[in-house]
């Protein structure tokens, strides 16, 4: 083992993550997974499409379009 390898090996040791540290990160990941599943689920997508093609969605698009058209140039 040369000098470089010795230095790299000597500086490699770090404490393992404690159960608390690993648990906190896991909780954050779980929340992100649930959010992702909601976003990806067909039911969620269908609901979103229904909203946009419904009365409120169309009104929203109409108002947005009117605002766009009436903006002074």
């Amino acid at each position, binding site marked *: 083992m040369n000098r470089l390898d010795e230095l790299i090996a000597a500086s490699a040791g770090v404490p393992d*993550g404690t159960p608390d540290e690993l648990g906190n990160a896991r909780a954050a990941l779980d929340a992100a997974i649930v959010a992702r599943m909601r976003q990806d689920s067909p039911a969620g997508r269908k609901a979103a499409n229904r909203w946009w093609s419904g009365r409120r969605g169309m009104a929203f698009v109409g108002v947005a379009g009117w605002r766009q058209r009436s903006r002074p140039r």
Partner: protein
Amino acid sequence: MTGDSPSDRQLLAALPRQPELMAVLYERHAPAVFRYLARRAGPPAAEDLLSEVFIAALSASSRVVAHDSGSGLPWLYGIALNVLRVHFRQQRPTPGVTRDFGMDWEAVDSRLDAWAERGRLRTALAVLSDPDRELLLLVGWEGLSQAEAATALGISHGAVRVRLHRARKRALHALEKLQDSDPGSSGTHVTTLYSKEQPS
């Protein structure tokens, strides 16, 4: 597949359709990813960054690259590297200290027992480009094979072989030069090296 538990390769293949499988990868690889982060940013920062790595992996699961060995760890190290860069860039600069966007050198030095050794690794690795330094440390600290390091860095195995050889040679040469200039105890020398590091 052996037994009941799916291999990493199977998990990675199913991940775009089943994001909940990321939890299985987490249980397998979180301790190793935590150590990777702790070696570079220190244990306190590693706790926060660990969740960021796996959440970023969740977003990137459609672009997953499995290593030939089937392990998902090299892919996760590649994501962890990007998360670390963002982390270091977001940190407020300290007056009089040169910023390093890939490493907290105080955390590294604190792991070296002898004061004389502190700063030496930094000096040796300072002659390398960031990707070459990361490659050397993926192999030296994380114990990755050359092929696994290639997956983590998104380069070919041939490129890893050439770059690793070149990086080791240059770092060793820098270390020898340091030794020649100060053959005895290097505590004073290390202090001098730090004092040279002023922001440009």
